[in-house]
């Protein structure tokens, strides 16, 4: 498989996963915001922070209100991680690898991008947002299903799984971070359980379709420690960091010349699974911990690029 093509497939998967996660995040945040009393101010800017694009946001907007944040996260093309940008990039990547993926994959991504582009105005309106984003999520899932069911599980597919799971691990870890720290503008007092924290954590679970799964597997009332543990360390739940990293590893194990990325992935898995969540939250070190995990993920990405994509190494 060509290095250049492998890289595009990897990015295709990452961008589609990114679009889906961003859409999920906004949808669940929207729902929780409607439940909140007027006195508690929810920070939409917190969502922007999750995607690590605050700097670009600040360049373009002064007001950090809902409208601007949602527009930025969904529609703005100068935000490289917005839903529309991600779909556009995904489309470019699948367009240039059409000879490798089932042709329906191109049709799905192409139509999804055209749908998003043509409906973007209602997609960022308060009322049109939910159905719009839900449609995007469903189409992303259709693509995932198509690739799983109709594409040979060869090296190209390994790069799909690699990209998807690494992006997912990245996004989930970001959301844990935000849940822990950034959603509430005022610092919550840990000894005074806030009545609405439960709602927030529920929202984070919902955004990962994890609410039901949490209920079935954790069987306790929603609380910060258990939710973080679930999203970080649960193995059966496919959107948990530990699960995603495990599948990153599985994909990488099937690829040639994989020593370096493999070593880094195992290290990240040890970090994620070995963490004592109780202690991290108690000592107020969860944010630092997530930072380290994010660095791990970034390092894995760099070693993937060096090992399989960099055109200079081969000659």
């Amino acid at each position: 498989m060509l290095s250049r093509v492998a890289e595009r497939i990897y990015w295709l998967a990452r961008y589609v996963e990114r679009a889906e996660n961003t859409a999920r995040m906004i949808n669940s945040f929207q729902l929780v915001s409607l439940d909140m009393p007027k006195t508690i101010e929810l920070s939409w800017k917190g969502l922007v922070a999750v995607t690590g694009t605050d700097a670009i946001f600040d360049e373009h907007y002064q007001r950090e209100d809902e409208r601007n944040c949602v527009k930025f996260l969904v529609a703005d093309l100068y935000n490289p991680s917005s839903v529309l940008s991600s779909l556009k990039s995904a489309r470019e990547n699948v367009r240039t690898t059409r000879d490798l993926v089932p042709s329906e994959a191109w049709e799905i991504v192409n139509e999804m991008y055209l749908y998003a582009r043509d409906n973007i105005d209602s997609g960022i309106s308060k009322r049109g947002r939910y159905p719009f984003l839900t449609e995007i999520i469903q189409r992303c899932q259709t693509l995932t299903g198509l690739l799983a069911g109709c594409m040979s599980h060869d090296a190209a597919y390994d790069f799909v799984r690699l990209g998807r799971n690494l992006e997912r691990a990245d996004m989930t870890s970001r959301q844990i971070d935000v849940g822990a720290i950034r959603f509430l503008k005022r610092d919550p007092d840990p000894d005074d359980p806030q009545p609405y924290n439960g709602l927030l954590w529920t929202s984070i679970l919902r955004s990962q379709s994890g609410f039901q799964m949490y209920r079935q597997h954790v069987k306790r009332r929603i609380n910060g420690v258990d939710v973080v543990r679930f999203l970080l360390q649960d193995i059966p739940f496919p959107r948990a960091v530990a699960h995603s990293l495990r599948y990153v590893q599985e994909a990488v194990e099937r690829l040639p010349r994989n020593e370096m990325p493999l070593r880094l992935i195992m290290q990240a898995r040890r970090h994620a699974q070995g963490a004592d969540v109780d202690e991290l939250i108690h000592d107020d070190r969860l944010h630092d911990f997530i930072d380290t995990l994010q660095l791990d993920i970034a390092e894995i990405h760099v070693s993937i690029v060096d090992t399989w994509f960099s055109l200079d190494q081969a000659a």
Partner: protein
Amino acid sequence: MSIDWKTYDPSPYYDELIGARGKPRSAARQLTQYLSSLDDQELQARKQAADHAILEMGISFTVYSEGENIDRAWPFDIIPRVISKSEWTSVQAGLVQRLTALNMFIDDVYNEQKIFRNKVMPKYVLANSKNFRDQCKGIHPPHGVWAHICGSDLVRDKDGTLYVLEDNLRVPSGVSYMLENREVTKRVFPEVFENSSILPVDEYPTQLFDMLASISPRPQDYPEIAVLTPGIFNSAYFEHSFLAQRMGAELVEGADLVVGDDDCVYMRTINGLERVDVIYRRIDDDFMDPEAFNRDSMLGVRGLMRAWRKGNVGMANAPGSGVADDKVIYAFVPAMIKFYLDQDPIIPNVPTHLCMNEKEREYVLGHLDELVVKPANESGGYGMLVGPHASKKQRSEFAQLIKKDPRNYIAQPTLSLSVAPTLCDDGLEPRHLDLRPFVLQGVRTDVTAGGLTRVAMRKGSLVVNSSQGGGSKDTWVVDEEA
């Protein structure tokens, strides 16, 4: 209101579907009957279905002037163009004959040059040929074939005669649209396919693969074949990707390939370097190899020519094939057929005046308002003059161009290109068209059933090139006896 063929008036042109007094041609009878059973609304609904299918399939064609917008959906007319199988059989034979002679010519030009020694053609034509490559002298590619893939443009004149207008031997494009057109049409008019015998076109990718495999330097069951594209910004990228996909070949860009110290070609893959046996290149000679041709090319692969000369990689079309893709050389094709094959041409050339000959040049300059003048080495309809439609100023500019560089210009009578019913805003109207069949030559020669019909969508226009706003139609070769 449905179409009444008696009121459809293609005159004074030859119509591909409808003959005298609104009577459908026999091969088109089933189609025209079916069309007249549809009312305007139904027709427009079919058109919308086709537009939707095209958008969905992502068929696109770049138009350079449109800047960033690289995926303008490509104009398709849903009404097919029909040719009878009996006519097509003879056209096929004519195309095989023509490409065989052209390949013998190219091989001769780079080796013995018998055609000049026998004075069938003056040698000085070569001296001014933009696409003659010194680097190709003395090479004998497999099967003596240089131009493996040829797209010849055919046009029909008022009296119904088909002519070859030009031969595209460098990197002819359009075959993917031929294949996609058929897929779209099958979705739009399934009923007609059920009731008539329309020859299938979808064997092309398999035939292309087999032809490419036949020029592999390492005979084996699974040669590594790569389609070399200039990249996504090339106007025919869609096609490059499409063909690679249909053949199961790698779609590569220059940066994916490297020529090793052993003069073999390798691709950079996730496993490291892998040897390539055959390259279907969709990149012009000039940009192919900065070592041999244009030093500034960013698209090519350093050393590719070296690898090919040593016979370590098969290349289609072979470098230097473009020498025969020259409108002056074109004028000599009937003579070539006679010289190399001792046969008479089955499909005639359009009568061509060579401006390099003084007498003919005088004639051309005196009749600019009747003639079409073309530069010898341009493709895509660029840089030509359509005399009857040109302004006085344009004609005098062209007169200057011709006097300055007579070798580079030819002129032909303005043909009354045939027309076919085309769905326009106000229903079916006649529009001009041509036909580009594709011929594959390796160990054997295959011709597509039909080809790509290009249609000038604007009323009265004769320009069918997709780069200049033309569209296309599905082309049916109908077997009336089956």
